[in-house]
């Protein structure tokens, strides 16, 4: 059967995509994944020849924002991936079949492709009482454990599956747990954010397809390609922070000029995500650009990290620049470079941070999950 399957390039060609556009897409993806130019060839080859990867996508305690984000993937060809490149054999939001026929769809994948299929999870898993989330009379925990057993890897979409998200916020009334707390012995990729950025989701899928292995992860299981940099360090308003130009109240003169939102509670200094680089919805904007402080939605336990509009604790001493990094230490989220940067002028610190960036993810001390 596999021989009959058209390659990804053949499929997109049918969709009217030229070879030139296809190669352009591969180059963009390589850039997003942080690959050397030699890696582009690998992407082209992989997408050109492989059969469609079977994917089972479950919804547990969630709001479907991850599915919604996924279908927002911005380049047209990325939208094609979700329909054409992977074989999305079970996805409750999109699939035609219901009930028995739906359940059969994922059971068929499990029987036909043991060790080859990917399980993607949207939502957390209640453990206080398994009956807090049931599908087809089975609990989320039962379904996930059964499906993960012979999966090649598990992708935990969003903050719910990666860290429990809003339902795990204090007092976590349903005992909501992320995937990695209830599944062991499988590679788990935590694609963080509430939701993750569409192009980050597409990028993770492309990585799996291209290299046949999971991307490098930081200590929180997040792909380094997208979660190794602080929003603060990639923010286009950073120059205002360095210059001490702050929004003091919403819609004030500073806000109208795009000053830094640190004093309005911005969690950019303690948040690792690609918002400042890739941005949202085809690069249109991201929260800070549209005037709202980062709420830190790609970090575990962000709901309980203090009120959103209370600025991070201020520490006197080395000026604002150092203050932000010390704050990071206080919350256990600073890079080693940042810690060493006390007496180093901004430019040198930034330079080192950039040059050390590939290793930054693994050096991050991570906050305890709730």
């Amino acid at each position: 059967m596999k021989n009959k399957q058209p390659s990804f390039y053949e499929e997109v060609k049918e969709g009217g995509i030229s070879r030139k556009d296809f190669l352009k897409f591969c180059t963009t993806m390589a850039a997003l994944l942080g690959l050397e130019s030699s890696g582009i060839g690998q992407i082209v080859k992989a997408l050109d020849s492989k059969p469609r990867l079977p994917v089972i996508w479950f919804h547990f305690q969630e709001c479907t924002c991850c599915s919604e984000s996924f279908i927002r993937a911005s380049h047209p060809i990325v939208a094609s991936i979700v329909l054409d490149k992977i074989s999305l054999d079970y996805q409750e939001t999109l699939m035609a079949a219901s009930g028995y026929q739906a359940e059969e769809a994922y059971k068929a994948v499990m029987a036909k492709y043991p060790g080859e299929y990917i399980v993607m999870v949207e939502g957390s898993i209640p453990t206080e009482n398994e009956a807090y989330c049931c599908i087809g009379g089975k609990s989320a925990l039962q379904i996930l454990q059964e499906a993960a057993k012979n999966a090649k890897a598990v992708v935990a979409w969003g903050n719910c599956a990666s860290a429990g998200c809003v339902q795990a916020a204090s007092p976590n009334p349903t005992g909501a747990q992320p995937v990695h707390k209830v599944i062991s012995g499988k590679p788990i990729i935590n694609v963080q954010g509430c939701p993750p950025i569409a192009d980050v989701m597409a990028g993770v899928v492309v990585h799996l397809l291209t290299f046949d292995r999971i991307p490098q992860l930081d200590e929180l299981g997040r792909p380094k390609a997208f979660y190794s940099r602080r929003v603060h360090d990639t923010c286009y308003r950073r120059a205002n922070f360095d210059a001490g130009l702050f929004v003091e109240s919403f819609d004030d003169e500073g806000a109208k000029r795009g000053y830094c939102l640190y004093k309005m509670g911005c969690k950019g200094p303690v948040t690792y995500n690609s918002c400042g680089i890739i941005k949202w919805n085809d690069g249109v904007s991201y929260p800070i650009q549209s005037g709202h402080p980062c709420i830190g939605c790609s970090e575990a336990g962000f709901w309980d990290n203090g009120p959103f509009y209370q600025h991070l604790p201020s520490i006197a001493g080395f000026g604002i620049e150092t203050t932000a990094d010390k704050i990071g230490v206080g919350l256990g989220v600073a890079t080693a470079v940042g810690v060493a940067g006390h007496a180093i002028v901004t430019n040198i610190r930034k330079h080192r941070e950039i040059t050390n960036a590939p290793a930054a993810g693994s050096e991050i001390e991570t906050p305890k999950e709730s």
Partner: protein
Amino acid sequence: MAERIVIDPITRIEGHLRVEIEVKDGIITDAYSAGTMVRGIETILKGRDPRDAWAFVGRVCGVCTSTHSLTSVRTVENALGITVPPNAELIRNLMANALYIQDHVVHFYVLHALDWVDVVSALKADPAEASRIAQSISSWPKSSVGYFTDVQKKFKNFVDSGQLGIFANGYWGHSAYKLPAEINLIAVAHYLEALEWQKEIVKVHTIFGGKNPHPNYLVGGVPCSINIEEANAVNAERLAMVGKLFEDAKTFVDQVYIPDLLAIASFYKSDWGAIGGGLSNYMSFGDFPTNGYNNPDSFKIPRGVILNRDLSKIHEIKADDPTQIQEYVNNSWYDYSKGDKAGLHPWEGETKLNYTGPKPPYEQLDVTQKYSWVKTPRWKGYPMEVGPLSRMLVGYASGKAEYKEVIDSTLKALDVPVAALFSTLGRTAARGLETKLTCDWALEFFQQLLTNIKNGDSRTMNNDKWEPESWPKSAKGIGMVEAPRGALSHFIVIEDKKIENYQLVVPTTWNASPRDPEGKRSAYEESLIGTPVADPKVPLEVLRTIHSFDPCLACAVHVYDENGSTLHDLKTY
């Protein structure tokens, strides 16, 4: 003989819901609806800063994303007596309009169309005939023979691969599918186009709220600032993009959605224009203020209740009247301190989980006991249907010209009576007509925003009561929104600057709830009564009616014997 059937999950919806139905001689005679997932967000909100609530409740739903956040900021503003600047109101309207358009188009093509469109049949279509039909009903440019040939070929290759993905195990070939192959092919092409297109209109959220799903909101206004002389604010470029997005949306809705809706409806009107009517009470909280949220008379969508399908009278809603809106838990897995018979106004609402259903894995729920995580709301004791049909009916009954025009012209085009609105098809048609109106409203709001800015008003925030020091010791508030799926309300009690109680009464709570203490069914349950089921193994008809509500939950459907007790032939589907 009656048989009991379980369908679980019902897909192409948001969330996890369960409906149980009783079938006799191929007709549904009773139904039970149950939610099977709970998160306890109301409990999590207790003790938090009211200004943060929008972010928490925003995560109730990522499909109708932003709608709970909007409701929440209105709720807190109502409690604290904050009036937002006109531009903030307009930007909130524009964001809500963008959501309506995106959500309704996605519902029609991605969530609902496969109930009416047999995608496999599209393989047999004649592309030349499809092109002729498409050009006869619309001026949408993607309509050439070559275009439909390419779509068909692409889809054929997909089917030939043997990996059917999201189209696997569908009900293809079911006798209830009635569209000619060519219309099926047009619909498949537009399914793919809609999936591509929907990611554009949400950019309105990204411009004003920074991201989508889950854009940012702010108590007192909106987070974005307007400064037409500044790159780092909403300026001429950003505004031009918003204008273009809505213009393009209007084109898509007028040239693709509406013609497709009418074409498909013309093949199903004779039966589905009379099936699935359900309740005869319709409620709209109203929305899209043109002169302030505190002035409901200015809303584009009027507020009110219709009882017994009597379109000559609109009843007034008072959400703060403790006798009007009440929630029951007699059939829901919660405990009330006053006991199961009590109905509580949401300000007094309680959310104490108490699961008493079967231990999973289970085959069936005992519907003589509590059977759902959904509470049961009532207005003056009446069950209410909420959603696009209710809004269009309240608008129509209020005599507003634009509602009359769009409804009457559609009834005339389809050659059906007003009574056809009270049906599964009526619900689906109302959603499309509402989308058309929404496109016009959005362009109107956009022009008003430009006018305000031109006249020198760029304010987007009222900071007067931002600091908690300015708040009273105790406060209570209600926020009312018409979400895409219907009347949505939040209720807050604030004590000492913190949330003391927060309750949400959401559209799907009204529609999908279990029976109340008097045994009265809610909208889903009632609408399934009388629906034919040709083959219980492939209950396409059940999906049509349930999907016509655009559920915000994942569902399960059971079929009982005629007594609702003795089970004859248990089958799980």
